[in-house]
């Protein structure tokens, strides 16, 4: 018995030693990076009175886990080699987990980013939670001018007179069309309004070949399409006090989308990514999607064109957009780090052609007006819609509030519910989400 206990004891001790040794050395390894940045910033903080620029590391978080990550990497690498005072450390987090990871990092305080990319419509929420710092001082110190950026995102992220985000790009919904199918159908120019669009898609549909004029998605990217159509038709998602997507203007657009299915211009029962699959196979002539799809279409070797989304609604031209912005998390106080961020952002504002190459249209006016940018066919086409881009309503918890719409909208497009009923149901659910 004694022997067995000894054996057990020693094996346990041995195990814990191995484990401890393993972890110890590892945490040293892992800890080193963090330790260096910390001690670096601490030391620097002590000397913040110095006018001489101190070296500093800048931890920069982005959600660019797709092909776009490569382009941001290029910009960061070029910046790092352009000077040796500041070192930007690029961290690419998976797109789908980005805000969860960011929330956790911000709340834990450790390893939180010094600089982060944030979508424009997220900024008010994070400002409301007191997680971001105004960037006015940083901008003026680095000679970054508000007027050098497209107004829409700047206005959106100016809250109580303070500027909370510096725009990198704007990505509105755009229209992609298959040039070969257009040619075959004898259509010379991309449609710009509803009448042109309706005739075009009828012509482009060829049942015998299984090609469709416009395959209506039932899920993503309806998050971009539905708001665009509602605004174009004079409706609203939010009327200032309440959700408004069961208005006649909104319902009419839902009916219009379902109508395309009824007319046979689009197949029914389109699943997640189904419209894109058909587009890639040359069986879907038109697709509304974001600028980020460009790379994929290029690689697939499709002969496609890009144009602004036509004005389908009866009231005005409008388009839903997103925008990537640089934000400064609360707690980044080290003067050198802040100065370094300013330096980097100033650099980006005039050296972001690499980002445009990813398919994005830039938000910096000097870049937009440069000959280099104008030479980019697609991106400059995308930028044409910047005058009338709109972002998600500036309402706290908007993502949770509007969430019921996507399920009900798919019900309506799939023909499982009448459009009015579906939107009424969505509004009822959204109101419940607001009350909670």
């Amino acid at each position, binding site marked *: *018995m004694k022997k*067995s*206990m000894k054996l*057990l*004891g020693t094996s*346990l001790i041995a*195990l814990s030693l191995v484990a401890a040794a393993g972890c110890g050395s590892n945490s040293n390894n892992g800890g080193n990076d963090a330790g260096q940045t910390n001690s670096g910033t601490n030391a620097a903080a002590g000397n913040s009175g110095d006018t001489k620029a101190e070296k500093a590391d800048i931890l920069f978080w982005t959600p660019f886990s797709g092909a776009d990550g490569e382009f941001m990497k290029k910009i960061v690498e070029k910046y790092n080699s352009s000077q040796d005072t500041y070192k930007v450390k690029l961290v690419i987090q998976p797109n789908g987990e980005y*805000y*969860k990871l960011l*929330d*956790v990092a*911000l*709340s834990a305080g450790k390893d939180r980013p010094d600089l982060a990319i944030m979508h424009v419509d997220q900024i008010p929420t*994070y400002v409301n*939670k*007191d*997680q971001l710092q105004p960037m006015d001082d940083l901008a003026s110190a680095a000679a970054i001018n508000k007027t050098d950026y497209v107004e829409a995102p700047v206005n959106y992220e100016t809250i109580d007179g303070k500027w909370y985000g510096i725009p990198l790009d704007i990505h509105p919904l755009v229209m992609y069309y298959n040039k070969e199918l257009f040619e075959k159908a004898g259509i010379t120019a991309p449609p710009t309004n509803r009448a042109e669009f309706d005739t075009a898609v009828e012509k482009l549909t060829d049942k015998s070949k*299984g090609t469709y004029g416009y*395959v209506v998605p*039932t*899920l*993503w990217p309806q998050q971009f399409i539905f708001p665009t159509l509602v605004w174009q038709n004079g409706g609203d998602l939010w009327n200032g006090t309440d959700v408004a997507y069961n208005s006649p203007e909104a319902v009419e657009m839902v009916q219009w989308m379902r109508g395309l299915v009824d007319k046979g211009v689009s*197949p*029914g*029962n*389109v*699943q*997640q*990514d*189904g419209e894109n*699959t*058909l587009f890639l*196979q040359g*069986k879907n002539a038109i697709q509304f999607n974001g600028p980020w799809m460009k790379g994929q279409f290029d690689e697939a070797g499709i002969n496609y064109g890009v144009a602004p989304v036509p004005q389908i609604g009866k009231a005005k031209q409008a388009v839903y957009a997103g925008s990537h912005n640089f934000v400064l998390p609360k707690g980044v106080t080290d003067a050198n780090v802040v100065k370094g961020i300013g330096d980097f952002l100033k650099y980006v504002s005039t050296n972001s052609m690499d980002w445009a190459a990813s398919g994005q249209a830039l938000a910096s006016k000097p870049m937009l007006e440069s000959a280099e940018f104008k030479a980019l066919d697609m991106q400059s086409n995308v930028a044409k819609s910047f005058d009338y881009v709109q972002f998600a309503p500036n309402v706290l*918890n908007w*993502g*949770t509030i509007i*969430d*019921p719409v*996507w*399920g*009900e909208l*798919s*019900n309506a497009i*799939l023909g*499982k*519910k009448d459009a009015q009923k579906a939107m009424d149901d969505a509004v009822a*659910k959204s109101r*419940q*989400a607001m*009350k*909670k």
Partner: protein
Amino acid sequence: MVKSSLQSRLTSTLFVLPYLLSFCAFLLIPILYGVYISFHDFELLSDSHKFVGFDNYVKIFTPGTYLFDQFTTGLWNTLQFVLYSVPLLVILGLALALLLNQLPKRIRGLFRTFYFMPYAISGSVMAVIWLMMFDTNAGFINGFLAKLHINPVAWLTDLPWVWVSLVLTTLWWTIGFNMIIFTNALNEVPEDYYEAASIDGANAWRKFVSITLPSIRPVMLFIIITSTIASFNVYAQPFLLTRGGPGDSTKVLLMNVLDEAFKGKQVGSASAMAIMMAVIIIIISAVQYKIAYGRKE
């Protein structure tokens, strides 16, 4: 048996100790902390987390509230999935294991590997593969059906096909797990039981019912319980394949809990939902346990 001395009880305890410590450190403490969170208005990004008592729980059980709807519709969809998938996971898992045991020894390992392989695939890749297979207008399965002159099926957008697709995908992805455990259990049944039965002239079915099934009962129970837990926690399949659609008819409970925690940033009420979910799973498992062992004792 001799009465157990203190020393004996101590050595017995030592066997559990390593696991117990790790259980406390990495499971019990987080669970208790999770329970603590469920009693608070816990927003990840706020500095103050107000104590709200049972408020989060009360809301889950008050009809007409947002949480009530999220919880009940999610629960109903999850229960449907459990109901459709668990019997198949158990019965087909056992059937595959039995089939393997009947195959010639030389090819047994090969086929076991084939059936197990999908289990090694990660969820995101599983979804990519099956989105392609199930695509209504360009997918493999509908293409195959067309050759047989069968009309296309809306696998991922139409009831009841969405459930069929989700269950099929789950079977493909995870049944290898149950099959392997059943294989182990079948191997533990002593050969001489069967030999004795053969001498008594029992046929294959008789042997299965009176020898195999009783011998593997503990393992069967294990599989039923773990399959139920796994099906209750279903997430990747509906999240990636149907996005909860059509409408929200396949939006399962875990999707709603995660939305509440991360989209809504309400970790407190999400924790309360997770705890209620656990309570329901525990009750169901206890019933399963009682049914399996209740008769015996």
